[in-house]
């Protein structure tokens, strides 16, 4: 097996590169820790000078006694235990890869685990594929800082599975084989359709993968203090290893293990939170409303909108909508992208080819829905629990976005039992976050490689004439290249704002992929022209709208905002008694604003301000995608496509003549 040797050698090279980067973590770790350590005493002081009287009293009163001890709040994971847990996860998953590699002999094994995954296993794997670190850490963080809105945000991620369950899962299992291209090319001209389907798959996967890789790098740097570069390369090497050697079998089991770990962690932590609340949900919510820290936090949040709230009213406001999600159209647009996009995500679609029958595909979605939904319900407890026990103020000191809330909560809940349990629990959750990243990125790499190797190489370039050995070789090579590209993009995008890329991935999947999948399966007149128009217009519209949306940086808008800050700060300074300077935080903000105020020029697209005011393009791009697909098909009718509809329709409903995933 010379091929295997080549991969072993290549992986070694990557590992050595990782080790080389690892040699310089000390420099890189320091700046990472710095932002968390900025003096937290400042906010109390200016509040006394400017804010209205009732708030000022509360604001000064609360931080004062708390100030000395947790002044420099930081999340400190016990390095030995954490690295030990990471090693266990790497060890177990590597064992899985070795075992999986032995079973991966044909293309069907590589892309679809030979169709030998059961419905229950696939359900766990879908959950593992879907729930990213953003779900795990981000949503509970949002809830801990903004209450109700964080919970409302999580709902769409589950409701999305109704579309998957009712519309795509079973037909795709019956009519497809390995990729999106397989489904779409059934009654169309295979070559152009496969090529476009592959491009769209690679685009969606790349956007999602970039966001995941950058998130992974930053998270690992924060959790165990290794540098961003080391984290990216470490995660990248493991991801490439899983996919190249173990293909779908290894990816599936990594996802199942991750989902199991994630659910255990969430369940255990929720149990501890509810234990503290005496298993009384009503009392739990009353504690939130009555917490002076949450009341104070909410008062400050609504003050930005010119609303004055205090005491119990402010606490109650935490359980009401509108603290975070302020643009309803944007929410509806994101909701559309989730509800339709999840069903068009190539890495999710691909999971349905791993089960033997439509019944198993159905069962797997239902199981996944219970796991994912259950997780989001538990997340509420974690988010609100973090708000009660750590206070929003404490959480933002560690990370302004609240991403560390769950981890901090784990440490505190554990430490309340015994300090070592706090360390263990924190390390365990760090390991869960690590496993989460690995599972999601592996699924993405596999989906992108399948599109390139199976659709472009085997079916477009080689006309479908490639033997099993060549197909598997192509799949492995492509996975290696895709993974390596993922690492390079991750390294290059360190300083970029990638938060909008996840929403973009869902928007492209919803506007490009989903319309053509649904029309292929359910509309007689659909054809090649329809697929190509739909994919092109949906994808370009989503990307184009994001390029001119508020997601981009507009120097003039930044400058205008900064000028306001400068004016406010100077006013505040003037109000101070003579000889007294601004607080450290305010002084920093003023210095930064003064620099920003000088910014001039245009965005990447040469715009002074956004042309499209929503951050999520779905509300426009999804109808455009559907419209283009329908008009394209009507403009270029094709008799063969129409005649073959009966075949597609009977197949997708009955599973007759199903491409047997088991071919050996």
């Amino acid at each position, binding site marked *: 097996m010379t091929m295997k040797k080549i991969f072993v050698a290549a992986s070694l090279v990557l590992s050595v590169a990782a080790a080389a980067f690892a040699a310089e973590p000390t420099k890189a770790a320091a700046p990472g820790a710095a932002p968390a350590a900025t003096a937290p005493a400042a906010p109390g002081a200016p509040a006394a000078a400017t804010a209205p009287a009732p708030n000022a009293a509360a604001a000064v009163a609360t931080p004062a006694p708390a100030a000395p001890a947790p002044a420099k709040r930081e999340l400190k994971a016990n390095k030995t235990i954490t690295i030990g847990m990471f090693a266990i996860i790497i060890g177990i998953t590597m064992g899985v890869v070795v075992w999986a590699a032995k079973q991966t002999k*044909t293309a069907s094994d590589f892309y679809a685990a030979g169709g030998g995954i059961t419905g229950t296993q696939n359900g766990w794997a879908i959950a593992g594929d879907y729930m990213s670190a953003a779900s795990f850490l981000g949503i509970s963080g949002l809830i801990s800082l903004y209450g*109700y809105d964080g*919970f*409302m945000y999580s*709902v*769409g991620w*589950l*409701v999305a*599975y*109704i579309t998957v*369950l*009712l*519309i795509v899962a079973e037909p795709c299992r019956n*009519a497809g*084989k390995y990729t999106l291209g*397989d489904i779409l*090319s*059934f009654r169309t001209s295979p070559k152009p359709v496969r090529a476009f389907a592959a491009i769209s798959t690679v685009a969606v996967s790349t956007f999602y993968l970039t966001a995941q890789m950058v998130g992974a790098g930053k998270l690992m740097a924060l959790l165990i203090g290794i540098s961003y570069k080391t984290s990216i390369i470490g995660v990248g090497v493991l991801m490439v290893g899983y996919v190249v050697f173990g293909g779908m079998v290894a990816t599936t089991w990594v996802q199942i293990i991750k989902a199991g770990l994630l659910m255990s962690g969430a369940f255990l932590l929720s149990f501890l939170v509810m234990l503290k609340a005496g298993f009384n949900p*009503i009392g739990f*919510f*009353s504690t939130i409303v009555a917490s002076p820290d949450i009341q104070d936090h909410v008062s400050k949040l609504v003050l930005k909108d010119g609303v004055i709230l205090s005491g119990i009213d402010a606490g*109650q406001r935490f*359980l*009401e*909508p*509108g603290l975070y*999600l302020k643009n*309803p159209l944007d*929410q*509806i647009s994101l*909701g559309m992208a989730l*509800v339709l996009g999840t069903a068009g995500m190539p890495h999710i679609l691909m999971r349905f080819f791993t089960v033997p029958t439509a*019944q198993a595909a*159905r069962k797997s*979605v*239902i199981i996944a*829905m*219970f796991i994912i*939904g259950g997780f*989001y*319900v538990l997340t509420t407890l974690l988010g609100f629990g973090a708000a009660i026990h750590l206070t929003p103020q404490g959480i933002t000191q560690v990370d302004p976005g609240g991403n560390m809330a769950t981890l901090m909560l784990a440490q505190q809940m554990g430490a309340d039992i015994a300090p070592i349990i706090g360390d263990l629990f924190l390390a365990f959750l760090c390991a869960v976050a690590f496993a989460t990243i690995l599972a999601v990125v592996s699924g993405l790499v596999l989906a992108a490689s399948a599109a390139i190797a199976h659709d472009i190489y085997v*079916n477009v370039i080689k006309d*479908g*004439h*490639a*033997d*099993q050995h060549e197909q598997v070789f192509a799949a492995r090579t492509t996975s290696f290249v895709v993974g390596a590209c993922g690492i390079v993009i991750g390294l290059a995008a360190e300083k970029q704002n990638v938060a909008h890329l996840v929403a973009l991935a869902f928007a492209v999947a919803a506007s490009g992929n989903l319309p053509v999948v649904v029309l292929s399966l359910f509309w007689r007149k659909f054809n090649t022209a329809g697929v190509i128009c739909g994919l092109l217009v949906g994808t370009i519209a989503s990307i184009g709208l994001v390029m001119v949306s508020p997601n981009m940086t507009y120097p003039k808008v930044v400058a205008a905002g900064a000028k306001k800050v400068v004016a406010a700060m100077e006013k505040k300074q003037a109000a101070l008694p003579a000889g007294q300077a601004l607080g450290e935080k305010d002084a920093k903000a003023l210095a930064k604003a003064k620099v920003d105020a000088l910014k001039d020029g245009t965005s990447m697209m040469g715009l002074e301000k956004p042309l499209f005011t929503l951050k999520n393009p779905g509300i426009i791009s999804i109808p455009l995608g559907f419209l283009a697909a329908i008009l394209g098909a009507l403009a270029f009718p094709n008799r063969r496509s129409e005649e073959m509809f*009966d*075949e597609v*329709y*009977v197949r997708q*409903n*009955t599973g*007759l*003549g*199903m*491409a*047997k995933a*088991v*071919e050996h």
Partner: protein
Amino acid sequence: MTKGAGRRHHNSELTKKGVTTMAERQYDWKAIAKNPKFVELHHKKTAFLFGWWIFSCVYYFLLPIGAAYTPGIFKVKMIGVINFGYIFALSQFFVSWGIALYYSHVANKDFDRLTRELIDELHL
């Protein structure tokens, strides 16, 4: 490669590995599509799937729309400090699970049975 159950099946990959006879079998797709059993299956499925899909979408979008445009209703306290908005958001999970379980029940009972009957009839 899922193409035509017989048309493109004689390529190297499949013949070498040997496919189960199921996949090589020729079907008269047009006739099956007109089979009364299939028509019944198709009608039942379409009504059920799209009907419940639209219901779930409407129910879901009531959440962001309601939160934005009728915040007053969302603020009404129902149980202690727990308000309608919270219960409505939580109900989304139970409604989704409910639809999933109901679909699974109907599919196992009706759709799968019709499909089996259709296949049995074809294999006579």
